[in-house]
């Protein structure tokens, strides 16, 4: 309990200070309230039944799209990484395209997605998938390629099949790297989803876009908070799964135990 307090209290102090300062700045009219909302006003947006429903619905939509996009990038990204790791020439032939794909900004691809897929959640999911797939590929690949050579020899010595080496050695060995990729991908999936929503509407991105036209900075801030809350939740979930999986064996998770 004491340890919990010690880790939660310090980051709360600057938060409270900033909130009070903001409230003061707006109340004293030092900054007009159509530029920066008073924290209490943002809070009201969460409490007011109409805006609250709109915000929670938007968050749910974004969450669904981000999670589906993220899961798709986990499955597809890992499969691509396994294929790339199968032979040196495969990697040399295809990896540059994965890198190229990664460097094209999602905001520039989103309009294309609308043309190809149409308005609505599928486009948002695709957008989340496209931004989050590369970290999964890159980290899984580097994990798969870093297998202990002695252990590879050991598996060869006992005549292990290709599948056995993959599932009993290479993939488990790559797990710490894979989790690193998933942590990055989870945050990016939320960003990708919101970018998609800016173009197609709906979700947190849609709320922010509409609120902008209505000068509702309080709702914009509420949307921002919800978006980061969503990202943090996903990140924490991955961390939890990573901890439960690796706690017995990996140094990065053991120091905490």
């Amino acid at each position: 309990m004491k340890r919990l307090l010690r880790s939660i209290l310090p980051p709360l102090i600057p938060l409270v200070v900033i909130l009070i300062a903001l409230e003061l700045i707006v109340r004293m009219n030092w900054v007009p309230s159509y530029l920066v909302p008073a924290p209490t006003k943002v809070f009201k947006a969460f409490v007011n039944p109409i805006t609250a429903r709109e915000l929670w619905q938007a968050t749910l939509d974004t969450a669904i799209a981000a999670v589906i996009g993220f899961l798709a990038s986990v499955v597809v990204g890992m499969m691509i990484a396994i294929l790339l790791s199968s032979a040196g020439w495969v990697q040399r032939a295809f990896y540059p395209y994965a890198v190229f794909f990664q460097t094209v900004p999602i905001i520039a691809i989103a309009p294309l997605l609308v043309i190809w897929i149409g308005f609505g959640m599928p486009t948002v999911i695709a957008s989340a998938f496209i931004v989050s797939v590369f970290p999964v590929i890159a980290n899984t690949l580097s994990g798969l390629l870093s297998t202990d050579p002695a252990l590879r020899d050991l598996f060869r010595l006992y005549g292990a099949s290709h599948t056995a080496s993959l599932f009993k050695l290479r993939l488990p060995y790559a797990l710490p790297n894979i989790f690193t990729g998933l942590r990055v991908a989870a945050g990016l999936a939320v960003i990708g989803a919101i970018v998609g929503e800016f173009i197609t509407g709906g979700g947190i991105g849609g709320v922010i876009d509409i609120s902008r036209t209505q000068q509702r900075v309080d709702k914009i801030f509420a949307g921002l908070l919800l978006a980061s809350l969503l990202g943090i939740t996903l990140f924490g979930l991955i961390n939890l799964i990573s901890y439960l999986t690796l706690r017995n064996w990996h140094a990065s998770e053991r120091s905490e135990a």
Partner: protein
Amino acid sequence: MTTIVAAQRAVGTSVILQDIRREFPGGVCAVDGITLTINAGEFVAFLGPSGCGKSTLLRMIAGLDRPTSGSVSLESKSRELQYDSKRRSNIAYVFQDAHLLPWRSVLRNVMLPLELMRVPTREREESAMAMLEQVGVADFARSYPAQLSGGMRMRVSLARALVTQPQLLLLDEPFAALDEITRQQLDEQLRNLWLSRAMTVLFVTHSINEAAFLAERAIVFTRRPARVVIDHAIHLPTERVNALRTEPEFAREMKTLFDALELGG
């Protein structure tokens, strides 16, 4: 006692090396023209300076590397355990560090070779448990490698190697990273394991003391590329305990090996 040992020694794999040469890309020659016969059931130490190419030789015997020229052949005397190039299960290899799978418990690490060879689950667990008892880490069967000391990890690694009842056990400086006391304990244990089983053991080391204590025969190599300086039969009692290391006869064997190492440069 001696007759029993002699009878057991007749089984195991014999290793015949014919003019082995191994050159790596870039022209570095690790092994140059080695011809040797290791008899079935022998305990042979490969002694040489670090990085002299003796590990490369061991890898070629295991089939993990191929010689540039020359041939490696393994023969097993017992008919039912004929060496089969496709199923190398008759060979076990112990590396310089334990190299256990960190995500598996000790027991499941030892079960791994049997698993890869598709031995039924029940049998796997029984054999692995029995092997852990033999090396004295049965109490830690459910622990994970990260929770064990270096010496215990190496014991688990030995158990993993022996669980398939190999005919040929290859060890590449297995105890080099351990402290002196643990190392001597493991030497003694390995020697006893060899005495109680029908297997050929090849032990790569750069320690004269270890080679003299463990082996029936020590082959001393030159600096890279590895060539044989002497092939020396060690005349020490069959049953060896650590106290032997302070006996004059032990010192005499060590001197022979030391001189050979000096000669090899």
